[in-house]
């Protein structure tokens, strides 16, 4: 029962991927991905309910573990994947119309997206640091060809940088894992338990301090690379701007957070082994550096997909800031931020993909007057940007407020003040760029593409995502209970 519940979120997308491999992308199969995402969402809810009421589910002799945090992350993966997969048919049809794709590339797209989802779900339910590493590195190789989907010079360049920087970053994390394993074996843990999060946290006080310090620093640096944190962040704007829109949505909306959750789980071990100061300092440095890079590069930004990519870095920096505070309130806020950012960023990237298809350019100054020319994508894009800027009633308003309050309460007044100053800078830059895109006279003077009704139908998944973010922002229900159960697992 436990095994089935924990394996299902991995098996469902894997099976969908195999089906796509044989059947290809056609009229009858194009919603298979959406069904698979809905399956992940359903199993995530089932797992979360079970974990909150009956305790954590363990399976496969301790290699898989379904605690409330895993359940929560599965729900976020499922929800964001649902939006991205539901938006994929319209995106691929648009690419086909612009003669950018053929049947083979559509099949490859569908297969790789499902493999990507399976690897992310495995990383979330994995209970063993080694297994989680393998799953996260697998996401890099699977998404490499998705980033390079268009095969243009820019796409090849982005894919190369993405694979090299992420693989090197994550290899450093592997070195950290190996060192931690050696320390755990030395502390008397058995071969199978020496990499289990649970066992490591339980025996953390017995770990050698110096070796653990080295291991934790490498793990934070390595998984930080995959989570878009400085200093190994430079792949992110290239990859997120070159990937097809639904893939950008998945990479930005959930992959960053899934890597980040590994840092959260490692922090739990390190806080016992080394005291709370060490990881907190690392995280504060990474958070402020990331926020500074993002804010400064957002100011002069000329490309709206890169703008969204840097906005992801900004939000990852903010989450790291909250995690550094480490109190239950801060961690609940961070988890809420993961959910809100995932859905909001998915809608923003998918809307930006539609705008790119309609205008043929991703330059901000070339798409003025969007609100008048194609009101539906412009409306969803604008609303998604409002979500990302943290306006009420959307969830990010509540979570940013929570992070700030918890940070001040935890005695991190200066870093929080510095961090939110940078957030304010990013806010101003994004608001100004988006305003320039939406308002003003249309320089292209082209006729609007298609009817408003068709545009609205194509954008339904994005609108649903935005409604959901507003709903969890206002009601908190049904996530509040789960967040309270999951937050202690992400910190002390």
């Amino acid at each position, binding site marked *: 029962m436990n095994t089935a519940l924990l394996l299902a979120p991995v098996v469902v997308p894997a099976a969908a991927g195999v089906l796509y491999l044989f059947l290809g992308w056609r009229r009858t199969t194009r919603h298979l991905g959406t069904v698979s995402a809905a399956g992940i969402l359903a199993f995530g809810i089932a797992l979360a309910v079970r974990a909150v009421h009956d305790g954590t589910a363990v399976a496969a002799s301790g290699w898989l573990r379904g605690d409330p945090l895993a359940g929560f992350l599965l729900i976020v993966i499922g929800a964001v994947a649902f939006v991205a997969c539901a938006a994929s048919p319209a995106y691929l049809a648009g690419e086909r119309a612009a003669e950018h794709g053929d049947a083979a590339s559509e099949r490859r797209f569908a297969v790789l997206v499902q493999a990507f989802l399976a690897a992310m779900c495995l990383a979330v339910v994995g209970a063993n640091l080694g297994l989680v590493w393998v799953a996260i*590195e697998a996401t890099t190789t699977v998404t490499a060809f998705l980033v390079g989907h268009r*095969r243009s010079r820019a796409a090849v360049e982005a894919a190369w940088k993405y*694979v090299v920087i992420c693989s090197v970053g994550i290899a450093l994390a592997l070195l950290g894992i190996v060192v931690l394993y*050696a320390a755990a074996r030395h502390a008397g843990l058995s071969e199978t338990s020496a990499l289990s999060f649970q066992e490591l946290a339980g025996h953390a006080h017995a770990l050698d301090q110096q*070796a653990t310090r080295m291991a934790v620093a490498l793990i934070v640096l390595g998984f930080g690379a995959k989570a878009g944190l400085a200093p190994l962040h430079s792949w992110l704007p290239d990859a997120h701007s070159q990937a097809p829109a639904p893939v950008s949505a998945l990479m930005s909306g959930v992959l960053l957070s899934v890597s980040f959750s590994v840092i959260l789980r490692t922090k739990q071990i390190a806080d016992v082994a080394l005291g709370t100061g060490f990881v907190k300092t690392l995280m504060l440095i990474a958070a402020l550096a990331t926020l500074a890079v993002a804010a400064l590069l957002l100011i002069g930004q000329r490309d709206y997909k890169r703008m969204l990519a840097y906005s992801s870095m900004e939000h990852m920096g903010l989450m790291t800031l909250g995690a550094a505070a480490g109190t239950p309130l801060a961690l609940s806020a961070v988890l809420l931020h993961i959910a809100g950012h995932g859905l909001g960023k998915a809608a923003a990237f998918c809307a930006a993909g539609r705008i790119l298809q309609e205008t043929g350019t991703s330059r901000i100054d070339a798409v003025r007057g969007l609100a008048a020319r194609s009101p539906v994508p412009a409306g969803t894009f604008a609303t998604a940007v409002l979500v990302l800027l943290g306006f009420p009633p959307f969830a990010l308003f509540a979570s940013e407020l929570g992070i700030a309050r918890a940070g001040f309460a935890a005695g991190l007044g200066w870093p929080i003040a510095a961090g939110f100053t940078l957030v304010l800078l990013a806010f101003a830059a994004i608001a100004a760029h988006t305003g320039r895109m939406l308002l003003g006279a249309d320089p292209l003077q082209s006729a609007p593409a298609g009817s408003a009704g068709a545009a609205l139908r194509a954008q339904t998944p994005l609108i649903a995502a935005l409604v959901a973010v507003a709903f969890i922002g206002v009601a908190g229900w049904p996530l509040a209970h789960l967040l309270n159960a999951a937050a202690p697992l992400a910190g002390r």
Partner: protein
Amino acid sequence: MNGSADTQILDFACGLFLLAAVGALWRRELSAVIGLLAVQGAALAVIAAALGADEHHPELYAVAAGVGLLRAGVLPGLARRALAASGEDRESQPLVNVASSLLAAAALVLLAYAVAQPLARLDASPGARALPVGLASVLIGLFMLVARRKALSQVAGFLLLDNGITAVAFLAAAGVPLLVEIGVSFDLLLVVLVLRVLTVRMQSAFGATDLDDLRELHD
């Protein structure tokens, strides 16, 4: 075999492992670099086997065979085929010249010995004493990644880095659990395959595999 013979084999293999890493930084012909990577992979397999004999761990023989096959056979073979396809064999203009590179390698080896102290102190086995060798290969790999301009040189740097990590795993803890080792090897193989395909695409898009040409994307 008695313990001291095992230790001698282990020390010899570790020495060869380090020499191969330094040699890869020294040579500018990519085919020679790939040959040295194969030597390093073989040395890694010998390290695993010697540790297996030393600690009476027969499972390690199978791991050693797998490691040897992958890192001395398959991966260098893939790199060699990519090299043949690209037709350019020399790292013509590395960012750092050979003499400075070798000086840097010496400094990195010293750094590795300093950094490895907390780990080497964990236990006094012959493997743990040789541990800095693995870290040195990691650092040399990182150096090669930032100092070389050909796509294949970066792949070679990445392989040095990964061989180093595997060596640390063997020397510090007789290898990670088998399931994880298999997963890691599989991921490594996938990365190299992906990079090989990307090199081909890069060549058709840019006409060369010079990473200096990658300057379409910037802010």
